[in-house]
């Protein structure tokens, strides 16, 4: 099973896992790495190294908060010369939940990367944009007959 490592500035990564459990339920092989004030790249590399002790042959996907931030920069150093690891940035709840679902369905690392990029972007929506395109329900017509609608 592909291991998922969520890495962030501060406690976001830990909290995101707790939040995702409300939507997805129990999950295994998901780890969080936090980057705290006063820490540097070496601390992050140590944390990634410790997490990697639990990786299996299916590899690992790092979901990090911010492209170019320290958790990303350290992850890129960690991943660049290792096999079977990838990083996707901009981690959010829709991304994590979809990745967990795809992984449960047997998704490979390559597939999970695609899912992460797609779900992370598609999860961002504006209510007004959708609502303006939606047809309003009309009970006086909808309730008639025995046809779905």
């Amino acid at each position: 099973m592909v291991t998922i490592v969520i890495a962030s500035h501060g406690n976001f990564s830990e909290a995101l896992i707790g939040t995702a459990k409300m939507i997805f339920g129990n999950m295994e092989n998901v780890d969080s790495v936090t980057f705290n004030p006063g820490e540097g790249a070496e601390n992050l590399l140590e944390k990634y190294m410790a997490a990697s002790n639990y990786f299996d042959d299916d590899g690992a996907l790092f979901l990090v908060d911010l492209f170019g931030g320290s958790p990303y920069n350290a992850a890129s150093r960690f991943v660049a010369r290792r096999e079977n690891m990838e990083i996707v940035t901009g981690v959010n709840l829709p991304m994590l939940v979809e990745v967990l679902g795809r992984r449960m369905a047997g998704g490979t690392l390559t597939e999970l990367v695609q899912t992460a990029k797609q779900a992370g972007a598609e999860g961002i929506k504006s209510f007004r944009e959708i609502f303006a395109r939606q047809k309003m329900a009309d009970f006086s017509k909808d309730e008639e007959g025995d046809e779905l609608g």
Partner: protein
Amino acid sequence: MIIKWLRIDSRLIHGQVANNWVNHVGASTIIAANDSAAKDDLRKTLLLQVAPGRTKSYVMSIDKTARCYKNPSYENLDVLLVVETPGDVVRLIDQGVEVKEVNVGGITFKEGMTLISEAVSVSPADVEAFKELDKRGVKLTLQQLPNTGASDFMNRLKSKNLI
């Protein structure tokens, strides 16, 4: 109409149902059968807004759901049916809908209800309806998400001294 899964969830269509249960049970269609939501044009519109794009979704009254259930043109339709209360399930059965099993997923706590799990509370009227469903041989299972544990719902009511 083939009811692949019947879930009691007072939020009707929301993230958990949309994302997890539809995939898990393999339904092509979601029907939220609920009289007050069906009559409320804005609520109905907003429930349909959050339904997953890859499935067809409907919000209909209990009566209309039962009529559609009997319409032969939907004979092979795989449906995830969501209702708000166990009383609604009794009404569907009374109108000819065949129900063997019910997933008790979420009933939001309100004044006068008893909390029986993290996600499920029951009113005295709910308890009576669950007893009726049990009497009619419907299997009742408490389960919030596809990958969280399932347990026997009537045993849970017993353990809370509600029956």
